[in-house]
């Protein structure tokens, strides 16, 4: 079985984002970028499946500007076999991403698509579900445990009330949650090796898919900052403030 893993290039999760002064978006220039942490978990899971004999090839795909090839190289350094880069604008929407991924799935015929449940930049949480709809495949979202068989997969999902177990037919889309695994670090030899792994780059326009944005960004603003609070000396003062000043208990 082949596993396709879409990976997104986002601002590194440790970076404090800054809104541009013209309110057109957030500042991306000279900001450290990294693979979306949820997608790292997806890559890791694909590699573990491959290592246990459950998959014979892991293909990483990333959609965005030329720099997204670095994100694919990270996946290759972790252990993915080859990469596909699709040149597209940085702010391409999940609906368009899902359409391009469907085209890739049609060409590559993977048995499973593993992807992060959401990207930490736009926080949309849409791409996996949209791709599943377009392919008419089953979806196992927010997975914290997986058991993959030939025709079906058991997925443990993190839901609001706790955990939910479902069985889905294969091929399928599985979107991964935080606690599925802890992604490995790429070793230096593997980073070197990754430079020689096959990576092709194609233009989004070659897929015959309409990727025109459907939403217009009117403005992007900083949220209102909270007024500075105070330090209390002890528990007594805290309880007193909560009772008599804030009146919340």
């Amino acid at each position, binding site marked *: 079985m082949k596993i396709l893993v879409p990976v997104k290039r986002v601002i590194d*999760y440790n970076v*404090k*984002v800054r*809104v541009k002064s013209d309110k057109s978006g*957030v500042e991306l220039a000279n900001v450290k970028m990294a693979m979306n942490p949820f997608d790292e978990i997806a890559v890791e899971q694909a590699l573990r499946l491959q290592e246990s004999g459950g998959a014979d090839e892991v293909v990483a795909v990333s959609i965005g500007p030329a720099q997204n090839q670095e994100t694919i190289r990270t996946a290759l350094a972790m252990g993915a076999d080859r990469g596909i880069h699709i040149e597209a604008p940085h702010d391409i929407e*999940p*609906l368009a991403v899902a359409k391009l991924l469907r085209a890739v799935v049609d060409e590559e015929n993977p048995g499973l698509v593993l992807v992060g449940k959401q990207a*930490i*930049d736009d*926080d949309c*949480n*849409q791409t996996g*579900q*949209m*791709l*599943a*709809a*377009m392919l008419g*495949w*089953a*979806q*196992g*979202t*927010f997975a914290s445990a997986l058991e993959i068989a030939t025709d079906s997969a058991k997925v443990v999902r*993190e*839901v*609001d*009330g*706790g*955990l939910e*177990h*479902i*069985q*889905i*037919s294969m091929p399928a889309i599985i979107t991964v949650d*935080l*606690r599925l695994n802890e992604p490995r670090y790429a070793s230096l030899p593997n980073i070197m090796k990754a430079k020689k792994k096959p990576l092709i780059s194609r233009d989004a326009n070659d897929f015959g898919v309409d990727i025109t*944005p*459907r*939403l*217009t*960004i009117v*403005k*992007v*603003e*900083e*949220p209102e900052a*909270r007024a500075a*609070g*105070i*330090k*209390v000396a002890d*528990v007594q003062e*805290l*309880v007193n*403030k*909560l009772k008599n000043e*804030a009146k*919340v*208990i």
Partner: protein
Amino acid sequence: MSVLILCDHDNGQLNPLTLNTVTAATQIGGNIDILVSGDASGNVAAAAAKIAGIDKVLIAGDKIFENSLAENLAPLLQNLSIGYSHIMAPATTNGKNVMPRLAALLDVMQISDITKIIDANTFQRPIYAGNALSTVLSGEAIKVITVRGTAFEAAASEGGSAKTEILESTDDAGLSTYIKSELSSSERPELTSAPIVISGGRGMQDGANFSMLEKIADKLGAAVGASRAAVDAGFVPNDYQVGQTGKVVAPDLYLAVGISGAIQHLAGMKDSKIIVAINKDDEAPIFQVADYGLVADLFDAVPELEKELG
């Protein structure tokens, strides 16, 4: 305008976040219908009909909808979509699972997790874990939207008298099957709707120490939450997690105990009215958002707090 809401429920009770979604729909205006799927008991449909502002309750009682499997629910919503300008669901794990599948079937771009309605086509939503707010304009004929419950008041759960309509049954997509749930049972209020929340972080050191927080929760009628670090460490189950990718809460009082205040945690609680932080590290970022900060060892401060509360 005409809005269809996907009712969130557990086949016995209406998820209160549905009421916040009704308020969001009211701000758009026009007719508001609500789809209740599954719900063999009929309790949820009866409750939905009483919500103030609802015109019609659509009931899809088929067993295939009982566990809200997206592969069955999304096509049902697609079939119902004709004539509606907006289809909304609370941004619960259920709404997040089903709505993008619906959006793709309708070939529309979803607007996730809205926090404000500017007009019927323009919405505000948080991005980058709430560190920026994006205002977006949608030209889609049908707007598929998930709603952040804490950003809208709850609609009155009584006073409405909606009509009901039973929908014809549909076929199982045959792609997925529900097996079982492992749900945390608690007598305490639900995290996302509790007026007071007390959360523990990595500083709690052990799951057993959460009993200290539970004692305070029981005195205050509070829910118990946790940071991602505490959940990752296995102190408490995943459904305790407050943060960017966990639950978003905005109670009257949020007590953060032994939580450093990582960006992704702040994303889930910084809209709380009053924030209290107890942490022994006076440099912890949580103090930057706290109204009242207490620099202390939580193993001294928490038992003392319990005593003070009487």
